[in-house]
């Protein structure tokens, strides 16, 4: 499974530019499901036909990144954020564009105090010698993502874009395992989650499932002096109770808990005070769709080196399989 995770995290795909990730997943699931289609927004929809309940499983393909807003005469790029970016986190980081152009993020050094740093005071150096030079490599409007590799160490993965390629990997694995079920399963890889849960709603509107689960990452409260949160790395998938975008539907939540207990899958509960998931836009789609979520505990979310535990990843796959077979 690490191989698939590695491929997924290293594929370029900031919000609105998910095509490469979609192509990779399409390739992985070719002939493993009954139907694969892409909708107008770029959501990849993989369908396993069935006569029972229609269950939608959503994992977003897009990752956070930056967008070039201006190229100055010396070839430096000004930029804005695509999704949530902390200026401190990106300082000194490498970013990479779709065509492979590498850049380094730095800042205007004459600011009074480093705590006053803002994205407007930062720029990207792509080693260009002039504006003309830079324009051969990038254009205004081009997006870039973190450049960082994916490492498996001590049963845990350190990588960029685990938010939410790890969710994609889990869904891909669940689809490949082809567990016995009469239910109709929609494995949906969504677009533009990081900029406001934009892809999942239209996908759900087209499918009108009986229930939906969002598979995404969640923060942990197990690092030195961090904000209090009960979720721990390695303690199992976190069943969503609520986040800022959704309160999990009680039937969906209870079904998840029941599946976890019956199958001896370690689990914990997610109450996220910041951030939302695709379930937020799915549950208010059309006449309303009962929705919940499973979150994979992840450290350093929205950083170039996020960390997940493989045991949590494997248990998330198990929990999904139990959920859809019921």
């Amino acid at each position: 499974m690490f191989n698939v995770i590695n491929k997924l995290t290293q594929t370029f795909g900031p919000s609105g530019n998910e095509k490469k990730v979609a192509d990779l997943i399409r390739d992985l699931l070719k002939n493993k499901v009954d139907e694969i289609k892409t909708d107008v927004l770029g959501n990849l929809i993989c369908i396993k036909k069935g006569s029972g309940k229609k269950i939608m499983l959503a994992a977003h393909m897009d990752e956070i990144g930056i967008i070039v807003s201006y190229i100055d005469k010396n070839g430096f790029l000004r930029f804005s954020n695509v999704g949530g970016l902390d200026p401190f986190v990106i300082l000194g980081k490498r970013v990479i564009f779709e065509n492979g152009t590498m850049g380094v993020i730095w800042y205007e050094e004459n600011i009074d105090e480093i705590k006053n740093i803002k994205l407007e005071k930062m720029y990207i150096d792509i080693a260009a010698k002039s504006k003309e030079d830079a324009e051969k490599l990038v254009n205004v409007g081009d997006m870039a993502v973190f450049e960082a590799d994916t490492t498996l160490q001590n049963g845990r993965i350190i990588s960029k874009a685990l938010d939410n390629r790890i969710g994609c990997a889990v869904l891909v694995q669940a689809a490949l395992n082809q567990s016995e079920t009469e239910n109709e399963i929609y494995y949906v890889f969504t677009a533009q989650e990081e900029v406001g849960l934009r892809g999942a709603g239209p996908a759900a509107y087209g499918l009108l499932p009986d229930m939906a689960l969002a598979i995404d990452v969640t923060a942990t409260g197990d690092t030195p002096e961090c904000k209090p949160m009960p979720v721990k790395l390695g303690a199992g998938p976190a069943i969503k109770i609520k986040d800022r975008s959704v309160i999990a539907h009680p039937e969906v939540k209870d079904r998840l808990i029941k599946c976890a207990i019956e199958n001896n899958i370690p689990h914990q509960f997610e109450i996220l005070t910041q951030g939302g998931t695709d379930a937020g836009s799915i549950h208010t789609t059309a006449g309303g769709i009962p929705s919940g979520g499973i979150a994979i505990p992840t450290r350093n979310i929205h950083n170039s080196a996020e960390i997940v535990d493989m045991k949590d990843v494997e248990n998330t796959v198990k929990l999904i399989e139990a959920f859809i077979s019921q």
Partner: protein
Amino acid sequence: MKEALENLKKLTALDGVSGEEKPVRDYIISKITDHVDDYYVDNIGNLITYKKGTGNGPKVMLDAHMDEVGLLITLINSDGLLKFRTIGGIEDRVLVGKRVRIGENRVPGIIGFKPLHLQSSKERKGTVDKKQLTIDIGAKDKEQAASKVEIGDLAAFAYDPVEFGDNKLMAKALDDRVGCAVLIELLKHKYECDIYGCFTVQEEIGLKGAKTSTFQVKPDIALVLEGTTCYDVPDTKEYGMSTVCGKGPALTVMDRTVIADRDLLRHITKTAELNGIPYQFKQTITGGTNAGKIQTGGTGAKVAVIALPCRYIHSPVSVMDINDFENMIKLSKKVLETLPASITLYREQGGKEYV
């Protein structure tokens, strides 16, 4: 083109604060009836027009919002002065000393403030809070004021359009009468695709009209025609300018509400380049448009925004370049004429594909 500019001027002379767009809508209806196959006004007040295409193509929605920012009368004081709140984003500082027209009868008023002579030195340096401001309609008392205006009346800025300088136009409500004027012009021509021209309401208070128009039209592709921020005036570093007046219509790659569809955006830039029409990218990601609602309505649509740079937007008077306006019409028209060929679409029903 001359007619389009005439339409724009007439449109900016009308009042249509969010929620009361009727004068603008009536004018538009009078201009489009001969050019569309069908039209109707929906419950929220959107004007939805339909123009059958000459061939098979995706269903295309064109959106321009009719409403403008303005004021809402909330209270009539005992001295006959009117308290108000703002409708849409208006900075308190631009209100002082401005002329307004209130309600259907366009009752003239002025937003008054304590004169300089009577202000303390502290007051002179400080900023203005709209709570300190009132509208003076020249009434002697509450009773007289109440005979002319009612609580809940909407007030629009009262500045008529003036052509000036190097092919520039100053007018109120360029956001988004510009889009309305462009859309009227576009509806005069025939296209291969079916066109739904939507003149929407209540954009300025949260993209409300587009939500219902999208639900009715269910477009495959949408072009949003807008007026956008422009800040090419002194004290701005070049990288902080969102757009530059006179450098052509502006295309949005990303803003607060939308990331434009890549294929559609590429189609627009390619069309501009092929036809020698200048264009620019909006260089900031602030602000939002109806595109945000249209993109995620129903099963989703491919969207892009073509916008006219307007200096001093959301103030009583904004400024635009007439060449930009003409180029916006040219570009949008060419984009529509050549639309079906380069866009691939998948639809939910059986993944039917348009090429």
